């Protein structure tokens, strides 16, 4: 019975070529000023905070041959003290990674594996996140939230954006916005009730691939986190072993 239901629901294209099925285009592509302003207001609010802690539950889809999608789930906590302190805890599957940045060095550790790597890093949190991506292939969910509205950040201006209206998200009243830009559609649900405009939910859709895998996240914000002296500095446990960069050298072929 299930097979019949599944077969009926399965588009014929799914078993043949994985080409994008192009439906009709949006009737109009327009970047509403109020939608763009909301995005910039969010970025400005985030950068205006001196410190914060944001916890998120996220889902991330991967696409497999035949355009089948599987979703991984995870959660992260970012603790940031501007300009140059950050700690990230990231869990997905049974993995747990930590990143400590204390203004002078960045430590990437995996507590369950008992190993860690220390790399030099300096400067603003946003720059460290960017160089972590370039130099170490580390991509942190959330990092681009801080770039909107910053002229120096070089973010792409969306090609279209709309304010879709208000909705309840749990017990919070939020405003739903949708944007599109080359290769990416994204939606944010913003809490605009307080002094700061903060995102409580975000969905990013990869529209470059016909299966359109999505990343989704729910955020909860603490604008007055308790930060102790050791928050941003990695202290290895007695069993933790460092990985020396030279030891990790490649075969060189």
């Amino acid at each position: 019975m299930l097979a019949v239901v599944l077969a009926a629901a399965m588009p014929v294209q799914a078993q043949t070529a994985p080409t994008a099925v192009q439906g009709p285009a949006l009737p109009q592509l327009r970047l509403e000023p109020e939608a763009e302003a909301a995005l910039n207001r969010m970025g400005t609010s985030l950068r205006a905070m001196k410190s914060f802690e944001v916890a998120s539950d996220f889902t991330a889809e991967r696409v497999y041959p035949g355009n089948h999608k599987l979703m991984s789930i995870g959660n992260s906590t970012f603790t940031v003290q501007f300009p140059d302190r950050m700690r990230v805890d990231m869990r997905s599957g049974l993995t747990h990674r930590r990143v400590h940045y204390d203004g002078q060095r960045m430590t990437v550790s995996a507590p369950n594996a008992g190993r860690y790597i220390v790399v030099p890093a300096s400067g603003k949190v946003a720059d460290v996140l960017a160089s972590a991506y370039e130099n170490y292939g580390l991509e942190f969910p959330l990092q681009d939230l801080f770039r909107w509205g910053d002229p120096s950040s070089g973010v792409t201006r969306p090609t279209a954006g709309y304010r879709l209206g208000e909705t309840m998200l749990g017990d919070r009243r939020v405003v739903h916005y949708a944007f599109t830009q080359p290769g990416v559609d994204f939606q944010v649900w913003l809490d605009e009730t307080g002094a700061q405009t903060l995102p409580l939910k975000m969905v990013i859709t990869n529209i470059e691939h016909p299966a359109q895998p999505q990343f989704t996240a729910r955020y909860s914000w603490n604008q007055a986190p308790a930060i102790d002296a050791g928050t941003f500095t990695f202290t290895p446990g007695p069993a933790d072993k460092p990985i020396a960069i030279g030891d990790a050298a490649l075969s060189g072929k």
Partner: protein
Amino acid sequence: MRIMKFAAVLLGTSALLLPGLSPAQAAGGKKAAAAYGKPTARANPNVNRPKPSANAGHSAGNGRSAQNRQQANRPNKGKGHNNVVAGNTVVVNKPAGGGYYDNGRYHDRPDWDDDDDDFLEFVGKTAAVTAGVSVVAAVIGSVVEDKPDGCQPVNAYGQSYLYCNGTYYQQVSQGYQVVAPPQ
């Protein structure tokens, strides 16, 4: 008929995958999903790729389109990258945000739910590349069976190429062969 067969395969896959999921398998999304093969695409955890920082020597190539990537990362063209063509070896100084080459094979960036040790090994090796400790190379003529991740089709001078993470490939009968950049 084909549809029914397809559905049956799908159900069979699910049945294999779910009940017998051991903690070891569950530790890595890719391992749990072995029945599904290799991922062909991923969700973007960020809308915009990070802006290259001013002090990164090889920061070009964050563009999303094939044209951008081709121009930004094209060896020996423009500035902001250290790719070198020497002898029969293209030395690719790790593409920004990507993985690394070792022994002619491209190692893609791991996902957040991949094995912790694999993840740390990856960070260590990319750190070694970044620090200049290691030379990474995709040897011209070497063939990989699987299509590398992150490829963009590129047409240049009447030839079709795949541009994947800083290296040009052409499809051959055994797979994908590393070729010299079109110039």
